[in-house]
């Protein structure tokens, strides 16, 4: 059973069209991540799914029911907001209960659900505290707890990690992945961070300017991008792009090669000069200015002693090269 089905969803704010004909399905239990640069429409799309915005045209189906005109609380969704949006005047317990009380659920049922969510997220010690007394990470867990108690058909996450500091972010990422394994509901997650996308998703939806650029598993998107935009957005350091013809290839206009597929080899096909070195401990990244005026990023695993200004040779396996036409579309 599909948890979510979007058909030709469009959204305009006045004369400005923000979403163009979005078609998408999310299967039951799937973790789908919407990723893309700022302004690509991913948050808007999430809000349309939630019901906080109305689609200008097209339909939204959740678990087989058409919810295009249904209010948010009746769609079977629960949302975790970027700023957590906890009720400041209620305790942690109160925050998790409010929606259930509003739905006139039995007290025993409410207590059971809150207890379960609290146990899952280690919130037992904080149930009687107010949000102002909690740290950022704790507040985020309460926001997730509030979503869990609703036992929704579909979880929605709007950039939940962007307000956390770097160390906390990785731990919370793991917690969210664990959560998905435990609860096994469909989850739609929005982020601009491709690392979160790669590590959490069953499938990634790459968006640009209100359009779906590609949908696929993380590895598919990484290894087999449909166009130049997707190829450059996913992967860090970013893929190198050069004019294919300059290097003797007659297939397509642009050649793309990931930094880790370039090797330093005496007498390699290309030669250049090191202009910049970044030593990260586990990796060494080199910026090499080729004789042809292109600058390539080379990613080496391990520690190496190169110097700025050193001349060296660069080569790669043709099988790892990706080709794009003059419109940025992939030529397979």
């Amino acid at each position, binding site marked *: 059973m599909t948890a979510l089905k979007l058909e030709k969803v469009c959204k305009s704010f006045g004369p400005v069209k923000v979403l163009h004909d979005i078609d998408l399905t999310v299967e039951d239990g799937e973790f789908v991540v919407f990723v893309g640069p700022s302004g690509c429409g991913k948050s808007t799309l999430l809000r349309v799914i939630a*019901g906080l915005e*109305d689609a200008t045209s097209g339909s939204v189906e959740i678990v087989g029911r058409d919810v295009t005109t249904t209010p948010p609380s009746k769609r079977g969704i629960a949302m975790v907001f970027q700023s957590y949006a906890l009720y400041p005047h209620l305790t942690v317990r109160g925050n998790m209960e409010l929606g259930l009380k509003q739905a006139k659920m039995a007290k025993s049922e409410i207590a059971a659900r809150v207890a379960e969510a609290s146990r899952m997220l280690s919130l037992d010690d904080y149930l009687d505290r107010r949000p102002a007394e909690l740290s950022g990470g704790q507040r985020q867990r309460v926001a997730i707890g509030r979503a869990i108690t609703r036992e929704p058909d579909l979880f929605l996450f709007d950039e939940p990690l962007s307000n956390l500091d770097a160390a906390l972010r990785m731990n919370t990422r793991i917690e969210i992945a664990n959560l998905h394994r435990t609860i096994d509901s469909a989850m739609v997650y929005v982020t601009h961070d491709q690392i979160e996308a790669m590590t959490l998703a069953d499938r990634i939806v790459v968006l640009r300017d209100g359009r779906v650029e590609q949908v696929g598993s993380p590895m598919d998107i990484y290894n087999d991008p449909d166009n130049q935009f997707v190829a450059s957005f996913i992967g860090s350091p970013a893929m190198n792009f050069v004019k294919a013809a300059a290097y003797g290839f007659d297939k397509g206009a642009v050649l793309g090669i990931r930094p880790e597929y370039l090797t330093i080899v005496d007498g390699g096909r290309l030669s250049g000069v090191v202009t910049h070195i970044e030593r990260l401990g586990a990796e060494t990244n080199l910026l090499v200015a080729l004789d042809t005026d292109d600058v390539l990023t080379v990613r080496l695993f391990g520690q190496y002693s190169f110097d700025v200004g050193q001349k060296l040779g660069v080569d790669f396996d043709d099988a790892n090269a990706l080709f794009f036409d003059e419109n940025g579309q992939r030529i397979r």
Partner: protein
Amino acid sequence: MNKARRNIWHSVAAHGILLSYTVLALFPVFVILINSFKTRKAIFRNPLQLPGPDTFSTIGYETVLKQGDFFLYFQNSLIVTVVSLFFVLLFGAMAAFALAEYRFKGNALLGLFLALGIMIPIRIGTVAILKMMVASGLVNTLTALILVYTAQGLPLAVFILTEFMKQVSEDLKNAGRIDGLSEYAIFFRLVLPLVRPAMATVAVFNMIPIWNDLWFPLILAPSEATKTLTLGSQVFIGQFVTNWNAVLAALSMAIIPVLVLYVIFSRQLIRGITSGAVK
């Protein structure tokens, strides 16, 4: 239209209530203004009608202008208000700056002392103030009013401005000090321009109570030469209570300057209130 979220009837009801309130708020002003331009008979016969060609008359205004020197009253009000506001802002900002910027013994206590004035009405000390003014020969002068209104406006001004001054970046001030600016220069040239919105709010908050005040002009400066517009219109109405044309004209003349000032500053006032300047 957001189908999933809104109800057209809510909209109708909302506007209905707001419109009723608007009518209620503006009705008295409207009635006064239109009737000030009508003949006496027309005022009584059809109070709600707009002045037409046969009912239009400026006799009320003529009476008023002949009797009291309303332009003098207006001038007095203007001088008192503007000068008081100037001092409230200047001294208030200076004190607020000192309280926000420098650590010294008794800083918190002094702040509390000044804030007391927000809760305590200055009118309680009126008799002593009057004695003071008489003793210093300031009774029946605009200066007396200015001093009183300045004292009255300082507590709230200091309170509000201190909050805003605390938000001015520390780095900016230190950069000024490193550049060799004196503390006074830092205050006047760096900090003051940055708290302009707060100053506008304080100005507007004080402007209206000062302009409309009846108590202190009545007690400290009731002479003809120093009457404010509010006092002048009150006295005038008291004298001419049966001459409806004149009375209505006098009221209109009192309303119009305030309305004009308000229209000019309304955005500032609303922005000030809604920006949380008053906590």
